């Protein structure tokens, strides 16, 4: 790893600094602001690429580490690093941010300068979340990201943006506060914020259980897991396109990432005891989220609820706690980021033309917009897990892992595949097929900027679908290390058994 710069700090702070520089630009110079933001995101993406090319797939250890003492009296460090679990979320963030700038090009007309600043700061903070190996730093980024995101929804969102923004903020804040308490308890126990050290400690079973639920509050809201999902449809629907894309592609991945990075390695016994609950909630999310999509009349809301269903697959894979499920779960997080991000971009593209999200305002779009219809079709098929595209690999591994963990869970999860075909194809039919709705007749097809926005995601859909090894290959060692840690606890198992017996009594 001979890279001439501290790569993780660079990908975090280039966008943040870029955002601060934009502050200095005259707000009348909108094109400078846009081009500047685009340049910053592209530069960030390019400097993040060595994470992909120079990553050592043979070790589970944290790579590209940076560690500097920060507040020595509390043993707080500026400590960054990535492993096979987190590296793709950094890359996904840097890629998606470019697309968010591109899609907002004409859509954001008001307070342009502030919008791009918020976007860039969000990007830096999100990446920080995935790289932090110090809990203090992690929490800082975790909360820091909320503020620009709140503004993006609340300032540039749809008609009910304030309600949605506040709901989003409060939901996540309540979860975060419980996590903060958890972090402090952990610190009192181990006297460190170092995540790697904390993961090597063994905690008493009761403490594990309490902390598991405290962290659950934060992560489950973010995912979102049933029944903590109701902020998501509102936030997604009201957010501007770029906001929805960031929410779907990256922000909600933080919850699942949190489970993988913290809950499972730190509280293995509690995790194992709670498997039935977690699997149960995941299955409910898959079916519930899917069925509810059948009756949505708003395109964005439909895709939002479909996220609930798809993230149910992710948590199912993770809590199946076997190598297929966890690898499938991580891959599916990436897939969902790509595909749902792309679907929100697609909806943004048409919304810019019609300013309507109502499905009934569309119909027959394939006639005036054949290229657009083609892109949307590919992403639709990817969502419903057509083999050869990315969604299939993830879903298949998850169902395989789920089935290995519990047959009934695997069977129920597989119904999600039928349901998703139902609501997505019905959506596609109502929007693109049948007679051309007069409201959309004569609309222009996608222009070069819009094609360019979707093209990278299209390529990824097929890349992952045809040769997933480029991605799964990063995970094997990290995932098997994680699972080893969980399953090695011989004495801990005894404790669990005793604790359960105790609880039953």
């Amino acid at each position: 790893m001979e890279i001439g710069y501290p790569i993780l700090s660079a990908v975090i702070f280039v966008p943040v600094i870029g955002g601060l520089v934009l502050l200095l630009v005259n707000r009348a110079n909108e094109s400078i602001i846009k081009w500047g933001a685009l340049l910053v995101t592209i530069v960030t993406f390019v400097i993040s690429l060595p994470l992909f090319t120079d990553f050592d797939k043979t070790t589970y250890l944290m790579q590209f580490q940076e560690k500097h003492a920060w507040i020595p009296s509390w043993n707080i460090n500026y400590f960054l690093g990535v492993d096979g679990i987190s590296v793709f979320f950094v890359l996904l963030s840097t890629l998606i941010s470019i697309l968010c700038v591109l899609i907002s090009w004409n859509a954001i007309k008001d307070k342009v300068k502030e919008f791009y600043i918020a976007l860039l700061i969000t990007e830096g903070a999100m990446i920080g979340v995935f790289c932090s190996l110090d809990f203090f730093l992690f929490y800082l980024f975790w909360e820091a990201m909320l503020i620009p995101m709140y503004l993006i929804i609340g300032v540039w969102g749809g008609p009910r943006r304030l309600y949605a923004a506040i709901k989003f903020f409060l939901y996540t804040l309540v979860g975060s506060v419980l996590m903060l308490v958890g972090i402090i308890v952990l610190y009192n126990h181990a006297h460190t914020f170092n995540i790697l050290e904390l993961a090597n400690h063994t905690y008493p079973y009761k403490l594990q259980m309490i902390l598991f639920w405290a962290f659950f509050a934060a992560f489950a809201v973010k995912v979102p897991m049933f029944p903590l999902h109701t902020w998501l449809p509102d936030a997604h629907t009201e957010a501007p396109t770029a906001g929805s894309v960031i929410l779907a592609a990256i922000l909600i991945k933080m919850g699942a990432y949190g489970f993988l990075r913290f809950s499972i390695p730190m509280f293995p016994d509690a995790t194992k005891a709670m498997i039935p609950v977690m699997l149960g909630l995941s299955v409910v999310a898959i079916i519930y989220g899917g069925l509810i999509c059948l009756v949505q009349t708003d395109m964005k809301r439909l895709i939002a609820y479909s996220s609930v269903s798809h993230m149910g697959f992710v948590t199912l894979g993770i809590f199946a706690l076997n190598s297929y499920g966890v690898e499938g779960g991580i891959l599916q997080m990436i897939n969902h980021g790509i595909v749902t991000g792309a679907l929100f971009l697609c909806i943004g593209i048409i919304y810019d033309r019609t300013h309507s999200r109502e499905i009934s305002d569309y119909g027959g779009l394939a006639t005036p917009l054949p290229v657009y219809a083609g892109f949307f079709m590919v992403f639709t098929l990817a969502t419903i897990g057509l083999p050869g595209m990315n969604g299939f690999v993830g879903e298949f591994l998850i169902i395989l892992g789920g089935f290995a963990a519990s047959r009934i869970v695997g069977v129920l999860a597989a119904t999600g595949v039928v349901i998703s075909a139902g609501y997505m194809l019905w959506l596609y039919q109502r929007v693109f097929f049948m007679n051309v709705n007069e409201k959309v007749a004569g609309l222009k097809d996608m222009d070069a900027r819009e094609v360019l926005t979707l093209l990278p995601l299209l390529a990824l859909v097929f890349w992952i679908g045809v040769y997933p090894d480029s991605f799964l290959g990063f995970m094997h060692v990290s995932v098997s290390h994680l699972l080893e840690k969980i399953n090695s606890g011989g004495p801990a198992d005894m404790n669990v058994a005793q604790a359960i017996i105790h609880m039953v009594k």
Partner: protein
Amino acid sequence: MKYYLLIPFLPLAAFVINILLGRKILKTASQWVSILAVFGSMVISYMTVFDVIRGHTLNADLYTWIIAGTGFRVSVGFLIDQLTAVMLVVVTTVSFLVHVYSVGYMRGDKGYYRFFAYLSLFTFSMLMLIMANNMLQLYFGWEAVGLCSYLLIGFWYEKKSASDAGKKAFIVNRFGDFGFGLGVILVFLTFGTLHYLPVFDKVASVAGQTISIFGMEVNLVTVIALLLFCGAVGKSAQFPLHVWLPDAMEGPTPVSALIHAATMVTAGVFMLARLNPIFNVSPVAMDVIAITGGFTALFAATIALVQNDIKRVIAYSTVSQLGYMVLACGVGAYGAGIFHLYTHAFFKALLFLCAGSVMHAMAGELDMQKMGGLRKYMPVTYWTMLLASLSISGIPPFAGFFSKDEILWLAFNGNGVGKFVWLLGTVAALLTAFYSFRLIYLTFHGEFRGTEEQRHHLHESPKVMTIPLVLLCIGAVASGWIGIPELIGGEHSNWIANFVRPVVGHPEVNAAHSTAWMVIALSVAIALTGIFVARSFYIKNKELPGKFAGMFPFTYRVLFNKYYVDELYDLIIVRAAKGIARNIMVGFTDSKIIEGIVNGIPRLIGWTSAQIRKVQSGDAHRYAAMMVLGMFLIFALMLVKLLG
């Protein structure tokens, strides 16, 4: 032998070229891209088939597709053996002829390039399916042909009925694939691999194992076999998932011929034959398969008796014929099933293309009651369709006779449910002959019953359409001659059975020659009876059909409405799902319970603070009064304490 890779990838290349360049640059030239690609595939397929005949089979991986977790590893790879060889002939030949026919049939359509792009994509997918050497790649092809079917059924997407039908086909198939996918997963968890040959090697070793499903101990292989069979039920349109295929007729007719008759719908049968070592281990699953097939053969034939839409009659006939193939697999006669698949591909594709030719002449009219007497306007179509009908009815020496007879004969000699499904198949054969000739008589004989305008328009189709008809007709007549029963043709006359025997085996039959002749004579007699009855209904006594319908109004209505299966599904699946979603999930749990709590907590906090705020009114009199009250209380408490 590396050139086999070109077989699937030529059509894929054609798809990519046409979908990217077709709309703006190639336009009608896109036909050449697709046709050349499929022609190339066909030629290489034949070369490959000759390699196989010479004894060169092949099983090679191209690259490792998915590696995951501990030990999940599956490749993109190709298995070319006798079974694949038969399928290669069927798929590339029919596909090529349908491509050519489409040049005439689709001329002038605004989605011309798109049509050829989809046809190429379909050909690629189908070839990947039949050439796979593992179940996941099979599944890839399986879903991809389903996608092409969806795209092509809904090709004229402006029509609501067409886009509905495409969606229905996809979703109904998903129900089958739900089981199929779980079956694949269970295969992996049992055998640790998804590649055919290692699985087949190990399957005997797990024969007696059981698995606990919802508290019941069931035979493991039976569970696997039945789950896999679910996929075939969907794809090959067996009862109860047959409902999508008749609706699929909304697609352009060449599509019906290629996808919904000759190739894709037979994927289920192919899968049963391909995975036969698994099914063979489970007698229970075999019986279920045989009965499902036999029942479907009869069930669909009864519906076909009364339909008036020319394409729907052929569609139900396809469902019925697929039933025969599934039945054959269920009695272990996989070779006979594949043989019927092969002959059926020719005569059924021909029937559809003839129907397309008729529609072409009738300006899109589908109702046979408005046709009649077309014989003299379109002789090529008439004669080819007549020969195809003789073939499907099982009249010797046409192709359908040999394959159907092989199935019935082996079913007759099968164990367990063999005799029963033979009976179902034989009755279905009677109905087949009847509805096939009902179609011929209504369409081509008698007086023309359409409008004057239509009559004026009647014409034979152009050469580019009739030549494929004639070529397919050769297949419909002669393709059965590679499987003449040894009873008739002497030793080695049943070439096809011997050819695929290394892959699918062949059931042992020890029966007297007299019995065999009897079964053959019976099926021929029954077929002739069917044709004779149709003749007396639709040529001699034209009021008979109406009389019959009047005599059995209930039966007629049930048959005409296809046993109301669609209505039932709409009620118990579509409406139920939407009803639950709307009234319970949106209307109650999300809005009342979860949102109630979420919004309730801030409201509760708000309400509490509002109450507390009242105390701090800023009114000095009130404060003074409160203070006095408080002092009284304290004194009172002290007093109580002192006294108590």
